[in-house]
């Protein structure tokens, strides 16, 4: 199948190095300590953060740092064919773990000993790159909850189809079976915290593809920062002096 036309356009009309449109909104769940909605094209994800709060299961309490938990789920209506998926299947447990580890790496957990932070992410519309969208949404929600973090984590995926590196794969490109690299990135520290890849790639091409994903992460980080700053200013002036 042809994923990049001779004119250099992808199936949805993007250039190979072009991202989908991103949109973020802070404060989607009223009862949560922090919440956000993040959209990348047709992928739409909602995240809610509760905590730091008292540890629910005393035996899990850690004396010098906070316990971070994460739950990923996909809404039944998120995919094209409505499927009733059992809760806690392999895929969602794996993604929960990935998100938890990524977020835990950047939260300053030692500042909140003997407490627990719960992150809930749910996919409302799935169109490829749900993993990245979930991490971005979780970052925004954590920032909204006022949880101290080392740096913003942002995530973006990239792939390699028809001998072209492609940024931010959608569902059709994702299911083509080609290599799919998901990167989690800390822009200020210039460090990679998450790297996942399906299938194989030669090392020199891999570096190009990964660099492309990192550029995507940086672009998302800029956007997220703007959104957060705008939100902070709003809250501040509304409250008044």
């Amino acid at each position: 199948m042809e994923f990049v036309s001779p004119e250099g356009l992808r199936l949805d009309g993007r250039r190979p190095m072009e991202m989908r449109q991103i949109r973020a909104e802070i404060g989607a769940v009223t009862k949560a300590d922090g919440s956000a909605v993040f959209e990348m094209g047709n992928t739409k994800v909602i995240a809610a953060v509760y905590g730091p709060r008292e540890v629910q299961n005393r035996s899990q309490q850690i004396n010098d740092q906070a316990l971070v938990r994460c739950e990923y789920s996909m809404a039944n209506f998120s995919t094209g064919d409505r499927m009733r998926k059992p809760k806690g299947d392999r895929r969602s447990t794996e993604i929960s773990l990935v998100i938890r580890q990524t977020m835990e790496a950047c939260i300053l957990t030692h500042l909140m000993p003997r407490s627990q932070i719960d992150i809930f992410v749910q996919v409302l519309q799935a169109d490829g790159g749900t993993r990245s969208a979930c991490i971005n949404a979780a970052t925004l929600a954590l920032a909204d909850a006022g949880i101290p973090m080392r740096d913003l984590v942002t995530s973006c995926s990239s792939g390699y189809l028809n001998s072209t590196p492609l940024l931010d794969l959608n569902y059709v490109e994702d299911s083509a079976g080609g290599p799919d690299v998901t990167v989690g990135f800390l822009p200020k520290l210039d460090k990679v915290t998450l790297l996942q890849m399906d299938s194989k790639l030669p090392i020199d091409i891999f570096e190009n593809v990964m660099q492309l994903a990192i550029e995507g992460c940086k672009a998302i980080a800029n956007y997220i920062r703007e959104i957060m700053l705008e939100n902070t200013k709003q809250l501040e002036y509304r409250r008044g002096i």
Partner: protein
Amino acid sequence: MREIELSLNQTQKIRLKRALEKLESSSSKANSNSNASVSISDSIPVNHEDGVLKGHGTLDLNGELVATLCGVVERVNKLVYVRALRARYKPEVGDIVVGRVSEVAQKRWRLDIHYSQDAVLMLSSMNLPDGIQRRRTALDELNMRSIFEENDVICAEVRGIQHDGLHLQARSQKYGKLERGQLLTVPPYLVRRRKQHFHHLEQYGVDLILGCNGFIWVGEHVEAKDDMVEDQVSKPEQQKSNKNSISLEEQEQTYTPIETRQNICRIANAVRVLSILGFNITIEVIMDTMNLSSSLNLDIHEMLGSEFCVLVAEGEAERRSLTKRKG
């Protein structure tokens, strides 16, 4: 941007937008020199020659000061810290808080006060209902549930942080169990620390407690009675002699007149409106909002409608621009 969750029609939308813009312009003029909102991983400009003490919400990264929170940069002499908006409550000694009992444990109650851990109220750090100062016995420990049970709402003061968590105390008649009223939860940053957190609104017969942790209590006024003064000996006799009348008396006591209940609901809704709009919650603003609603002859349920919210926003914009002109 955090949207206000209301269903507005077109005119209301424009009016709200205008009011909020007015607020924005007035606040940006007021603190143009210290207008320093930062988001996570933004670097904070500091003069290293003067020496810098890094406070909460900051991190040293290769000699650069970096924010770890979204908030406003505050500078006190050498100290630089970031004050987060919309975070959980950070207790300070002497704060008045309202909490809910989550557990009755050994010689202590655990209270949910919207902090990262449950707060602890020791049996020994509160006055007993009989008002006598004495050592707490094992019997007192067994009778702890007769003082506070699970899910009771309690008002107390922050005593300090010990090795096993945050401790509270309730050593006065004004603290203790809160009954016959409503508990409201608002974001803690909307409640400022002030001299007075207990308010008795005489004209309405209502007690209002603005807890520093964002828990706000609106309830029927109770006379702070000092049991110590009462004659300890005569009390049991009285109880025996007129048992029938006591039950009647109790009935009367638990009955709250309808006007008071309406006032409670009206004040509670005023607080809700302010918290939806994200305005600072002080006694003056609450009373203004309440008076506005009664002067418009609005029903209590209409206060949560979009029209009233827009009116409150406009009123707040007007009020702030007025106070600025004076100042």
